[in-house]
């Protein structure tokens, strides 16, 4: 089956916000933002702006009709700075004009003065100063002190992990169109239509039913449009409300890079204790999360760091503490993995260093400690349907691990100038929003009189293929061709109170809701079919390939005529259904519970090659066995794994966010912030689908796919480290990501 979205993508006919024909009289918005990272605004004068031809409005904090507040978890984020600024790029005023050029030129005429205060950009420094987003949070199980006392080897160390720019190719953007009676429709590139609706209502001071958010598709999200699409959408609504005109805002790339948050940089301390034969007995870690200036989703992200602190391993004694540190950077935010990658990276570092100390390869420790069925995860959930060892063993077998090791050894013996290294990376990633209430979704399914079907859900399509998966669920449930099923925009008037499309849960939650809605209609149709056939058992009615059967026999009715008949007989051909994930909860008074419906497992084997002379590295191969459950669409799922792996490798090897001490982003364009291109993607990538993995929580037995494979990228870091060690065994004192060409060469030469 061809992916309907892809057909439009290749023709360039898929529409994104900036492609929509703008309504007549549309105003374009320029955002005037802070040039300093911390301080008080002492003067703000825009008299000159108002005389610029084409300018329709200048809006500052004092013009906001409702509340100047868009914070989601914590109310600590203004939409326009009010008196003080906390990061470079913080919006202070917005200018609306007839053209983008005029709006920008006018914004440049705003006069501003600050009382500048020293900026803090380092999370440990913020911690020492007591600048926290929330009180520290600790998870623990067993007794770490006892565990360390019983260990034969205990080591500790520090890890520093860089952030990551989402670099969704479509920048943040929105367009608001006013309607009658104060209603505003916002077209937004958001993963969270309800967050936009709620924030716009709050800022405008109107009930939520006055705001309609509509999302067609996103040109990439990756978490960067979960919370951070909101301000720009609200700004268009604000201009629309205050001028009565449609308003549009598409951030330029440089504005987007400067103003929006990224994946959180972390600094962490770890301590690990093991028995002589490599059993991990105790693990302790403290994470200093660089949250940026506002809470955004930082506390939830930090919590997931704690959930995934032990990755795919069973460890009896664990204690982890997360500290969300407030710094003068744009608020960092959700990004594929949502804190999980940082937690796992620290764990893998601890194992890597422990392996050095024990004089064994890291993979022996990894393998020995993999989760087994019914092991208890340290946050209280029992691991069920565990696939950790199966994935590991199948990967080792399928991809000839021992031969790979031998080939690399031989290569290294023969070559001076280039060295290779191999690392394995098992993953275990929990699926469900850890804020249990978010695990809900609705779907609205309409069967039209010609038999075609329209489906609305809360899921937002951003390239991850959720629309294609839900189409598949609907077409399989009705047993009609996929062409008959159309996915509608995600719209808060059709489907209300949506959870963000995030946490890899889009297809699970919304697919299940769509399934329920389809079954509602199907049950009515079966009852009607039985009646019209003058039979008594609706359960014996079956629709197969658009034909109606009774008791296994063809009835002569086909889907189209049957639906038309149903309509004339006043059968309800629409259904709204609601799905809530069963069994998930988490008790934050004791930090124990069953936060996840299930876990996704897998193992990757990564081979890297380092050019010793130049410090340049390449990822030669990534071989993966991944647990997809029963995949709804193999092509879509494969694409998610490949894309996630490359993004993960980019995070740890190439993508370097550089700020100066004043908190100014220096890697502020695509010429200075580099993401993987076709040549730096792994030369070879093989993905094997683990067979026979059941998942009753996923629609049609499938499993969530978006985030888990991102963490395979962590293996690339350690594969490069292993290659470097082949040249200089002492090359790797410091664990600091990303491992750029610069850091590789400097480490090889033991320079800072």
């Amino acid at each position, binding site marked *: 089956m061809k992916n309907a979205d892809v*057909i439009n993508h*290749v*023709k360039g006919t898929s529409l994104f916000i900036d492609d929509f024909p703008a309504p007549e009289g549309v105003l374009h918005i320029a955002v005037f933002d802070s040039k300093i990272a911390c301080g008080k605004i002492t003067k703000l004068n825009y008299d000159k702006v108002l005389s610029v031809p084409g300018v329709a409005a200048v809006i500052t904090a004092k013009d906001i009709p409702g509340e100047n507040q868009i914070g989601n978890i914590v109310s600590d984020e203004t939409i326009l700075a009010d008196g003080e600024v906390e990061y470079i790029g913080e919006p202070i005023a917005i200018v609306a004009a007839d053209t983008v050029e005029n709006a920008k030129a006018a914004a440049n005429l705003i006069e501003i003065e600050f009382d500048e205060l020293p900026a803090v950009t380092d999370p440990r420094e913020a911690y020492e100063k007591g600048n926290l987003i929330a009180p520290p949070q600790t998870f623990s199980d067993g007794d770490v002190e006892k565990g360390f006392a019983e260990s034969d080897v205990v080591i500790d160390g520090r890890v520093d992990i860089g952030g990551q720019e989402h670099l969704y190719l*479509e920048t943040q953007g929105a367009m608001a169109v006013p309607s009658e009676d104060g209603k505003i429709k916002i077209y937004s590139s958001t993963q969270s239509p309800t967050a936009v609706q709620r924030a716009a209502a709050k800022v405008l001071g109107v009930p939520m039913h006055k705001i309609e958010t509509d999302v067609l598709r996103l040109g990439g999200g990756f978490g960067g449009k979960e919370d951070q699409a909101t301000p720009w959408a609200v700004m268009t609504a604000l201009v629309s409300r205050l001028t009565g005109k449609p308003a549009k805002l598409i951030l330029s790339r440089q504005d987007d890079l400067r103003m929006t948050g990224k994946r959180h940089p972390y600094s962490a301390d770890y301590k690990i204790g093991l028995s002589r034969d490599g059993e991990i007995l105790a693990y302790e870690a403290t994470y200093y999360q660089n949250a940026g200036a506002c809470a955004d989703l930082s506390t939830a992200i930090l919590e997931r760091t704690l959930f995934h602190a032990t990755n795919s391993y069973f460890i009896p004694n664990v204690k982890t503490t997360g500290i969300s540190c407030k710094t003068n950077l744009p608020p960092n935010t959700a990004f594929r993995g949502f804190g999980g990658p940082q937690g796992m990276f620290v764990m893998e570092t601890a194992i890597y260093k422990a392996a050095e100390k024990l004089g064994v390869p890291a993979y022996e420790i990894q393998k020995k400690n993999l989760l087994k069925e019914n092991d208890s995860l340290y946050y209280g959930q029992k691991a069920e349907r565990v696939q950790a060892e199966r994935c590991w063993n199948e990967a080792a077998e399928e991809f000839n691990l021992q031969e790979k090791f031998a080939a690399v050894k031989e290569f290294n013996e023969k070559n001076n100038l280039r060295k290779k290294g191999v690392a394995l990376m098992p993953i275990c990633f929990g699926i469900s929003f850890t804020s249990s209430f978010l695990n809900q979704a609705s779907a609205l399914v309409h069967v039209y009189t010609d038999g075609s079907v329209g489906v609305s859900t809360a899921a937002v399509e951003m390239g991850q293929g959720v629309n294609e998966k839900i189409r598949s669920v609907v077409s399989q449930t009705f047993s009609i061709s996929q062409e008959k099923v159309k996915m509608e925009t995600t719209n808060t008037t059709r489907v209300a109170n949506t959870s963000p499309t995030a946490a890899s849960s889009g297809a699970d939650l919304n697919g299940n809701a769509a399934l329920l809605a389809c079954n509602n209609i199907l049950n009515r149709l079966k009852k009607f079919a039985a009646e019209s056939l003058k039979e008594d058992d609706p359960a014996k009615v079956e629709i197969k390939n658009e034909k109606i059967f009774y008791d296994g026999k063809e009835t002569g009715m086909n889907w189209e005529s049957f639906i038309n008949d149903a309509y004339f007989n006043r059968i309800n051909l629409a259904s709204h259904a609601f799905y809530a994930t069963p069994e998930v909860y988490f008790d934050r008074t004791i930090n124990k519970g069953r936060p996840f419906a299930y876990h996704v497992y897998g193992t990757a084997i990564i081979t890297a090659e380092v050019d010793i*002379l130049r*410090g340049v590295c390449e990822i030669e191969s990534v071989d993966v066995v991944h647990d997809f459950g029963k995949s709804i669409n193999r092509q879509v799922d494969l694409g998610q794994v490949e894309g996630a792996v*490359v993004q993960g490798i980019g995070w740890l090897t190439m993508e370097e966010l550089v700020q100066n001490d004043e908190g100014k982003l220096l890697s502020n364009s695509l010429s200075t912030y580099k993401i993987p291109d076709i040549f730096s993607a792994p030369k070879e990538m093989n993905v094997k689908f683990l067979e026979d993995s059941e998942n009753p929580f996923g629609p049609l037995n499938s499993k969530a796919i978006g985030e888990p494979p991102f963490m395979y990228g962590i293996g690339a870091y350690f594969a490069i480290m292993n290659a470097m060690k082949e040249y200089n065994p002492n090359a790797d004192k410091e664990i600091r990501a990303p491992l750029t060409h*610069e850091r590789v060469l400097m480490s090889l030469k033991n320079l800072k």
Partner: protein
Amino acid sequence: MPKNTMQKITFILNNENIFADVKPNSTLLDFIRKKERLTGTKEVCKEGDCGACSVLIGELENGIVRYKNVTSCIYPIANAEGKHVVTIEGLNQNSLNKIQEFYVGENAAQCGFCTPGFIVSTAEYFLNNNERNVEKVYDSISGNICRCTGYGSIKRAAEKLVADVPEAPEDYGERLKFLIEKKIIPEYFLSIKDKLQNILQTKKIDADGAKGKTIVAGGTDLFVQRADEMLNEEGYFVKNFAKKFISEENGSVILSGATTFEDFFNSEIIKTAIPNIHKAFKLIASQAVRNSATLAGNIVNASPIGDMTIILLALNAKLILKGKREREIALKDFYLDYKKVDKANDEIIEKIIFEKPGRGFRFNFEKVSKRTHLDIASVNTAFAAFADDGIIRSATLSAGGIAPIPKVLEEATEFLSGKEINNALLNEVVEIANSVISPISDVRGSADYKRLLLGQLIKAHFIELFSDRLNVGEAI
């Protein structure tokens, strides 16, 4: 006061003739998206670094319309004069074209924002290659960035495409017919030649003096650095009248300033004159940028890390500048200070000349950047040497990223002359180089790193060229 001169422009966009009044320094992308509302071409980075805005430019040369892919976000509209511009819409047919068909087959698109650019660049591959080689497809899409797929599905689509489409006729005109038959390009491409000829006959190109105007060549740096200011400036678009040529005369290689990077690397004269030059090719920009960027632009832009400048410095190139009078200057003397060059503002670089090296000539270019391809160097360096019997007779070593200007490392160059090649020499030359450079810490690396890296790359020159004279294990 900014001069807001509108200029008439004539070109063909897909299958339509365009006659428009434009600001000559506005971008082709804005014209396509905003004026023509062809929204398949996307804006992502506005600096030629991602390829989402890729279009084909067809230019009439010797009776043949030849197509190249360029990034329309940094392509001044004035440079489209008299050309055929093809967007994704201009490649669409009634049903999916062949490239699109394979992309759909492999699900080689996720969010879809980069996809039209990939399709356009892949079409360029078919237009300019009669043989089937997937690596060449990758060259064509080397400037296209995708954030979603990890390139796996894109590679599979490319592999299957080259396996499916047979080799094409070498003759360009015949090839167009072949590509139409194979459903890679639409039929109207055949009518473009005549249409372009008509445009060119009716339009006289203005080649007035540069005085008071911003001289624009490929625009690939100008439109990255100062697109907004450029918008209201008058431009002097050298590409509209400057001849492009690469020739050999009296033992010298002569290049017109308007030579594009891509022309340079594809030139048989260059390939013969400079051994190993093909290795540099992939490390420099992307194909789409190489198709626009000119040698003169690279030189005059005076970036301390201009790749082509570093290569030409090692070749001891000289420049012929043309203003009120013509004058000659050695390239190495052209740079006065950071972004300051010895050039009056109405002078243009007409020619670049270097002596064609003869026997015993060796050449090597090294560059390390954060990302190996389509990135700006942390440090780049070129080494040109005549050597025989293990002795360096003469050599030139140039380097970028280590001083305010692109430089010939003269002390190292002088020192090398007459020396025997061995590990000791290597260490000495690295030390000399180190003593004359002054790198700064910036987003492309710390000063200490750049210092270390230059030394490593000098070693790389020797290892690449004279490994038989060295103990390589010790040298690294």
